[in-house]
């Protein structure tokens, strides 16, 4: 069974009385352990897709199953719990809380789950070591470089040991060398068996992920694997 199962998924917005079809009857399966990129120009619907996959939103119609849980009719609390337990987010603008230091930022997801203070500290420190920032444990985000901030964000995303990590343009605010090292980190995490989905508009990133899902105008245009170079047809024209 696939970790993520989308069936006939639609998302409609009404903006100024006009209905916009952000996602148009999408079917998609992602298996556990895959590292894939969702690529598409802005306005293609890739952010909407990520919000749905990331349990930040619910679809207008269709079904979305993550780790066996049907989420199309989930309540706000259920979604929050999914985000907390099964999903980690990495954002383009890092989204760290400026008043908290590195450890406190990484601990943040755990205060919404039942961990003791000691456990929180241990897990946070382990996650920070994993991204190689143990020397910056007590610095504030302001005192870190962009690449270091993104590493803290990744540590925060993996600290609750989620099933899937979503990264929205994780290298968008970084120079190419730093960006490459962040991508390297994602590859390492993927090699350890984590499921990772990168959302990007950068074809270079898409070129080095094993799987690439191309989205345009609310449809999956192409879904191919880079190593095998096999592509499947889009779900709908």
């Amino acid at each position, binding site marked *: 069974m696939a970790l993520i199962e989308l069936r006939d998924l639609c998302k409609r917005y009404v903006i100024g009385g006009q209905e916009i079809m952000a996602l148009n009857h999408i079917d998609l399966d992602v298996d556990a352990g895959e590292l894939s990129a969702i690529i598409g120009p802005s306005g293609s619907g890739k952010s909407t897709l990520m919000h749905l996959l990331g349990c930040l939103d619910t679809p207008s119609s269709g079904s979305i199953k993550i780790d066996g849980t049907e989420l199309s009719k989930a309540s706000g609390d259920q979604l*929050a*719990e999914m*985000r907390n337990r099964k999903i980690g987010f990495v954002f383009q603008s890092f*989204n760290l809380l400026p*008043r908290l230091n590195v450890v406190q930022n990484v601990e943040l*997801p755990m205060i919404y*789950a039942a961990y003791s203070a000691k456990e929180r500290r241990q897990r946070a420190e382990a996650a920070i070591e994993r991204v190689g920032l143990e020397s910056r444990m007590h610095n504030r985000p302001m005192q870190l470089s962009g690449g270091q901030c993104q590493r803290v964000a990744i540590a925060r995303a993996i600290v609750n040991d989620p099933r899937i990590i979503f990264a929205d343009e994780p290298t968008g605010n970084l120079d190419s060398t730093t960006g490459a090292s962040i991508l390297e980190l994602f590859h390492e995490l993927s090699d350890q068996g984590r499921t990772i989905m990168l959302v990007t508009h950068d074809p270079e990133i898409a070129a080095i992920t094993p799987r690439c899902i191309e989205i345009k105008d609310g449809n999956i245009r192409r879904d191919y694997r880079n190593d095998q170079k096999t592509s499947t047809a889009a779900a709908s024209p």
Partner: protein
Amino acid sequence: MNLWIGVQIGIKEIWAHKFRSFLTMLGVILGVASLQSMFALTAGIAKGMRENLEAVGGVERIGVEDKEVSEELLHIAEISPGITLDDAVAIRESASLISHISPEVNSGVRLQAGSVKSGARMEGIMPDFLVVDNHTVEHGRFITDLDVLRGERVAVLGHTLASQLFPGVPHSEVVGRTFAANQRAFTVVGILGLYESEREKRQRELLEQQRAKSGRSDEGRIEQHRRRRGTFARKNWSLLAPISTVQMEFKSVNMVGDVDQGPDKTLSNLQLRVRDVENFDEALAQVTTVLNHTHRGIDDFGFETREDWFDRINQSVASTRLSGGIIAAISLVVGGIGIANIMLASITERIREIGIRRAIGAKSRDIFLQIIVESVVTATIGGILGLFASAGMIHVLILLAPSENTPILEPMAMLISFSCAILIGIIAGLYPAFKASSLDPIQALRYE
């Protein structure tokens, strides 16, 4: 998210904006301080009023006094003997709801003890006077039934009078000494305690402190202070003797026309004490029945009671408390509005933070809780500071203006004002918390 983490986040947030938080708290501080001061002021006023009431014998006391006879009985008013010792005897025999009866016969006398000469009003009394007039005996004993029975020439002196009559003699040694009242020798058998109101006590203590500081004996000023007419001047200057003695020695002749009627039985004063305030009206009815009989149906007597007085005290305290409470409540509400205002500004500032928290798994009730807790923490700290502020204010007030209405800090009032602050914190946080918790996570994350 548990509450403790919420409190920690709240305190951190307040600490991060120290000055802003202090300004926000100021409203609550002033609100709590004014509520607290209002409670203390009314408690002080109530205490001062009750003290005055106690000074005249408390609620249980009834004074029997002469009254204008009604017009239809005026022509036969002479058949009533007036308020006499017989009334006291009759009430003692037949008014079961009265616990103490204190008849009084007064006579002005000239006093002499050694070289000291003075004038005073000698009160002829019975032992019940001790209870009815709220006296305490400091040295010696009080007038006894035996003294009354035998008409002994003994006297109990008020504290100030004893000092005046026997200057420089310790009060314990004044007992046993003699003095002359209208040339008749009286023996002092007891000295009463010194009665003073809170304010007089404080003034006396202040004076003694000054004296101790300057190191010189300032007996004169203390004496002068004692002479000053205070709330209890009448009691401190009292000169008490058995009622029979005063009647026999000073009022033994009662001429009606050319005939001597024997000792004058007319009382200067008749005070009663009710056994139980619950039965106040019944007791009054009993006494009325008895007196109607002894006065032969003439309604030439009336009662002076403290019940109205007592009710008035309670009423005025209640109304002061109400109006003061409303004013204080307004300032507390203003403090609450201040908190609500700042919380609204603060969540607008932190929309992105709220989005991040939602994205990593905070439920909307976690956000609600965080904002409410922050608001309550602000109000609580404000409340605590307010309690200290009011304590300081009241202390200054006491130092500046010692009076019998000194404000009193009551633990109950502190509890109430503090709970009000917390309540205000909760109410002020409700709307901002609701607003923050209903933000859409995606919108909040995108907010710049």
